[in-house]
């Protein structure tokens, strides 16, 4: 079974090497044939060089997290992956969590499985919890999707989801839009608890709650615009 682990990365030179090593180490010896794909979103540092153990796709233009994830999924589609895992390039996700999410997705036959950081909130700051809960509530109000963590970067996609899913957002709002598209396509959406690792580095790289305002604006606009499409 071919698995593609897509890691969108922007200026992650300090941790990207460890992220790739962790994934490779975790999947070694399992029944899965795993290819790690780092989508370097026009980083200005040595992200691409430090991720050389993985397949590196260099974006020519900075596209944002949504665009980078989309490129990774397209690569997986072209290379006929059976499942795709996406996880953040800042090292906040454990590869072992990715593996357990994959196994859960296979077990329950989910098309899109979200690794939820909010089922077990240990280590997460109150501000982050508030921001994520707020965005999850907005996602529910706008799109009617009831999940605990709509913004998690750790996601598992079945082959069906890889073929069907497309989103228009290029920024972080793609997380909610993707769920909406999945719901509209009648994909089976599920969640599985994960434990995010919050280091000083990942805290400094994560989105601020102020960015949530931009995300909300973009989602509301997207919802209105779709009425005219």
């Amino acid at each position, binding site marked *: 079974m071919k698995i593609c682990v897509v890691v969108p990365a922007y200026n992650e030179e300090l941790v990207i090497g460890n992220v790739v090593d962790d994934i490779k180490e975790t999947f070694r010896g399992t029944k899965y044939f795993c290819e790690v794909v780092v989508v370097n979103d026009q980083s200005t540092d040595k992200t691409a060089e430090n991720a050389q153990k993985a397949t*590196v796709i*260099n974006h020519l233009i900075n596209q944002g997290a949504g*665009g980078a994830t989309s490129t990774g999924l*397209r690569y997986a589609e072209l290379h006929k992956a059976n499942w795709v895992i996406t996880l953040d390039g800042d090292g906040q996700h454990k590869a072992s969590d990715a593996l357990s999410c994959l196994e859960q997705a296979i077990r329950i036959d989910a098309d899109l499985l979200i690794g939820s950081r909010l089922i077990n909130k240990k280590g997460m700051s109150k501000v982050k919890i508030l921001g994520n809960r707020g965005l999850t509530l907005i996602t529910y109000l706008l799109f009617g999707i009831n999940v605990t963590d709509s913004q998690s970067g750790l996601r598992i996609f079945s082959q069906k989801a890889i073929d069907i899913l497309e989103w228009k957002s290029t920024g972080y709002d793609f997380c909610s839009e993707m769920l909406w598209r999945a719901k509209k396509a009648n994909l089976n959406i599920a969640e599985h608890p994960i434990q995010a690792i919050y280091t000083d580095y990942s805290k400094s790289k994560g989105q601020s709650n102020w960015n949530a305002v931009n995300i909300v604006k973009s989602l509301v606009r997207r919802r209105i615009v779709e*009425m005219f499409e």
Partner: protein
Amino acid sequence: MRYALLLLLTAPTVLMALLNIFTQYKMKRISKPRFVQQFMLWILISTLLLASFPVYNLVNDKPLLYSKGLSLLDILQTTAIVYLVYIINNFRRKIEQNERTIRDLHQEISISLSSRNGKS
């Protein structure tokens, strides 16, 4: 007479919008639910325009919405609004299509370059 004029001025825009929706659906550019949603939206707009006389009388009873009869300026403004909604929507759709094309092109170039670099 004034309501008939409003209807005459806005009818071409509404008809164009409906024709666009039908064409897109027939050419399989939009799904059936999207077609129904769009169709209902423009039917709602045309119904409001067709029923502008009773609608006007109805809202005129409310103190906040009271005004004297429909002036020629009101007719022109309403026509302009309907026309602008149609134009803006068309432009937005074309911009989104172009954005999508550029994004897809960028994606394919990035992937193809990475494959070429990997082989060399």
